[in-house]
Structures are given as structure tokens and as C-alpha cells.
């Protein structure tokens, strides 16, 4: 599958691998992946938090009553993360940032006037998968960025596929880890 736009002919997984490679992390030995650094230093995206994203300037009025997890303003080169979610779970915060980097690389980078992206909680979802194609692609990108296959295989072997422990080491949610391990076909049937 190719992405909808942006890095044409690259799958979300390939794009994530390319970013890790460009930042010298493709041979990383120990998790977690430094996603804030990747956003800010590799991609030049400013990461900010806000208690209510729907009140930020630039959010359309029809989303005023909507709970949002993350925003990407491509023109400002800024990612906004819901502060409450971030405080409750660093794994959630990291996944949201990675998800918005995914939008940036897959769907907006290089466009002269990239439109802002507004992501609801059910769209930034490491566990269930999103209905919209672009959101699903951003989730696949985030999973591949935060849990690169080569590193995850090594750690999974060492952790004897302990999903909770792997989630802790990679600083992601257990749901996101479970989905990633399933996608890589690493989990035996009795653990699915």
C-alpha cells in the first residue's frame, strides 16, 4: 500500500524506517524511541500541549465541542497534544506525537499550504485501528516508528513476549504493543 500523498510510493512502515534511518536510529539497541527528538530535531516540528485543543486558534467552530487528542498545523510546523491525555499516559502522548509525525510525513510534507489535521481519540488509536484511511496510515506509521520491527523482535525474544514489559520498555500502551506484535505475527494464538 502507498500513502495517500506526501511520501508517494512509501508505505507508512517504510516512511517510519526512513525517518529512523535518517536520524541514525535504525541500529538502535535499546528502546524507547526518542519521539520528541524525532519530531523537533529531525522533522523540525514544535511539540506543545494544551488542556483543550478544540479552543485553539485555527480549529474550526464545528469542532468546538469535540474532544481532540492531537493536532498538526503544517504551516506552523507545530504538533499539539491533549495535555490531560499526556499527563495520564506517557505512552498515549508518545503515540499521538508519532501519529502526527505520520500525518506530516505521509500526507502534508512538501505541500505549500498543508491543511491542519484534527485527530479525535478514536482516530489516534494503537489498539483498534481507525476508520479513515489517512488516520489508519498515521497509526501504522506511529506503531512502526515507536516499535521498529528489528528492535521489537530482539526485545520480544529477551522478554519472552511479555507484552506488559515490552510496552513498558518501549513506552507505549499495552494495547498498542499487542496490536504491533500481532501485526508482526509474533504472538502465539493463546496470547492473542
Amino acid at each position, binding site marked *: 500500500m502507498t500513502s495517500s500523498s506526501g511520501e508517494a510510493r512509501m508505505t507508512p512502515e517504510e516512511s517510519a524506517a526512513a525517518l529512523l534511518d535518517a536520524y541514525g536510529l535504525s541500529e538502535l539497541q535499546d528502546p524507547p524511541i526518542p519521539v520528541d527528538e524525532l519530531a523537533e530535531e529531525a522533522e523540525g516540528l514544535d511539540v506543545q500541549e494544551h*488542556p483543550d485543543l478544540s479552543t485553539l486558534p485555527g480549529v474550526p467552530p464545528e469542532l468546538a465541542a469535540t474532544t481532540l487528542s492531537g493536532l498538526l498545523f503544517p504551516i506552523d510546523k507545530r504538533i499539539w497534544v491533549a495535555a*490531560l491525555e499526556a*499527563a*495520564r499516559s506517557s505512552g498515549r502522548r508518545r503515540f499521538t506525537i508519532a501519529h502526527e509525525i505520520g500525518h506530516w510525513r505521509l500526507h502534508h510534507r512538501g505541500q505549500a499550504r498543508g491543511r491542519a489535521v484534527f485527530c479525535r481519540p478514536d482516530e489516534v488509536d494503537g489498539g483498534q485501528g481507525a476508520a479513515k484511511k489517512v488516520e489508519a496510515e498515521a497509526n501504522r506509521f506511529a506503531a512502526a516508528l515507536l516499535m521498529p520491527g528489528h528492535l521489537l523482535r530482539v526485545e520480544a525474544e*529477551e*522478554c*519472552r*513476549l*511479555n*507484552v*506488559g*514489559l515490552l*510496552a*513498558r520498555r518501549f513506552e507505549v500502551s*499495552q494495547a498498542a504493543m499487542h496490536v504491533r506484535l500481532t501485526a508482526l505475527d509474533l504472538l*502465539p*494464538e*493463546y*496470547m492473542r
Partner: protein
Amino acid sequence: MRIVHLADTHLGFKQFSAMDHSRPEPARVRRLRRLAPGDRDDDRTSAGRFRAMAEAIDGFTRLQEAGVPAIVIAGNHETPRFRSGGSVFEVLERVSIEAVWSEPRTIRVGSLALHAVPHEPHAEALERDILGLSLDTSADANVLVMHTGLETVKSSYSEVNQVELDPEALTRVEFDYIALGDLHRFQAPQVNAAYPGSLERLDFNDLDGEKAVLEVDLSAGAGNREFLRRHEYVPRLLVDLQVDCTECGPDVVLARLKGEIEGRELDGAVARLRLEAVERDVYHALDFDLIDHLLAPCLHKILSVGRGGLRTAGASDGSELSFEAFARASMPATVDADAVVTIARRFLDDAAAEEAEAQA
């Protein structure tokens, strides 16, 4: 080489409720039941823990007669609650069951080495026990049997004396299988470790997940499809009955109870009847024999007077309502207020009900 793994029997410990609400029976009724032990009425006698123990010993005896060795370890409930009562494991040892309840022990069963580690109330001690074990290299398989929670496995259900082990500890030991107990729903937290879940839903907070008995084929090797086979079963039905008694007399309370019961499956169930907002005078005027009769199909029943306990006519219920408002107003923004309120209300429910029942 196959083993069967089950856990969390709660043998000898309270079941279903902090208190047993069965009413004392006249001696003539007890004599009749002893004459007819197969009668299912016998199942409803108050001492469920002893009946369960008797059935368990029967089962262990059958295993022994069939040449199947059985090993049990102490979990978080096996600390004797009263010195005079002693430990349930003393009973098991009397009938030659291999019970490990004082210190870790390795038991050789044919070509299998079973490393049995009884519950410790402190995670550090438990971790020391595990890391102090040595694999039996002459055995075909080494199995660790232990009772613990894990820091990374969250449960909606909590119990006294529970400990949570750092899961890193389980990666530092090389057992073919780790037979875990403590968490009441089936789950395999790592490729060579599993919780079967409890044999029953042991109270009304124990509603999530599936229960199973696990069959482990050690020769298949962890990760293979044949390694772990789940034998699922449907645990005993729990029925939660709630009757709003606000401004109701005893007749209306019973009529509402009949309406609540109508069409519900009660046979063999454990039922909890919560009388919400019941006034003290109304409660004492209830026809408990009729309640017993209505709930007679149940194996066990728990009578609760709900949050707030028995009420005095005309008293304000403002204190009950103010907790949630106070909690929500005072909660830091970073805390999930709904989750805290839900947990707190559960504890308050249980505490108030126990207190009120003690008063009643």
C-alpha cells in the same frame, strides 16, 4: 509431557461475600440433610467453604487413586486468619496431598521438576525466592509454580495481601513454564507463563474475563499452538438484584423484589439482594422467610442494605451525595475523576453494606 494448571480455588477462605448470611437451621433439618447427602438442598447449607473443601479432597483422592500427582501452593489467602483455626494446608497434608505453604520447594515428579514457591506478602521476598531457585538440569522440564500479580498486568479486581512482581524478574529465569495464580481471569502475560483464572467468580467485583483450566504440553515448547490449551467453562451465575426501597413499606419492598426476580435465572446462582435506601423499621419488618423462599433456587444469597446503610425516617441523604461532588471538585486535572469516583464508590458500597448489616 502434560500438566494441568488451575488456580485461585479460594479453598478454606471466604467465598462470594465477606459474611455468610444464611440463617441458622433447626437441628431437625440438619439431621434430615445428613440422611440425604445427595439432596441438592444440602448445597445450600451455610458452610460452603467446608463443603468445597470436602469436594476438593474427594477430587485429590481420586487423582491419587488414578496415579496422578497433584501439588498445591499457598496463595494470598492462605495465611491463617486465626491461630486457633490454623491453615487449610494442614488439612491437605493430613490426606497426603503435596502442599507447599511455608517455603519454596522443588518437587520431582518423574522427569519433571516442579519449583513451588508459596505466596509471600512482599514482592522483594518473592523475587528473592524465585531468583534463588536452581534449574534441575537432569529433568526434561522445569516448571515454576507461584502466586503473584505483575506490575504490568492491571486488574479491576483487588484482594488482600496481593503483591505485584516486577515482570523483569520473570525474564531472568529459564523455566519451561510458569504456572501463575492470583489474577482471576485467564491471560498469558508472556509466552511461557499463564494465569488460568479463578474457578469461580468469587464476588461481585470479579466479573471480567474468562475462567479456564489449562492443559500444558511441555514437550511442544512455549510459543507453539499445542503448548497451551484452554479448557474454558462457564462459572456459576452471579445475579445482582437491586430494589429501590425509597419511601416503601415492607409489602411494597417484597412486591418489588418479586418483580425484580420474575423471569431471572436463579437456579444454582449466587444472588446479591441490595435493598437501597431502606428504612430501619421497614427492614426489620420484612418477611425474611418469604425472601428465603423467593431466593431458594440460589446456591447462596447475600443480603445487602446498599450504600448508606439502614436509614432513619426523615434523615437527610446529603452526605452520600456530597462525596461525588466533593471528589470531582477537588480532583487535580491530571487525575481521571470518573475512575477515582467509581473505585471509591465501590469501596464505600462494600464498607457501608457491611457496617449496616452488622448493625442489623
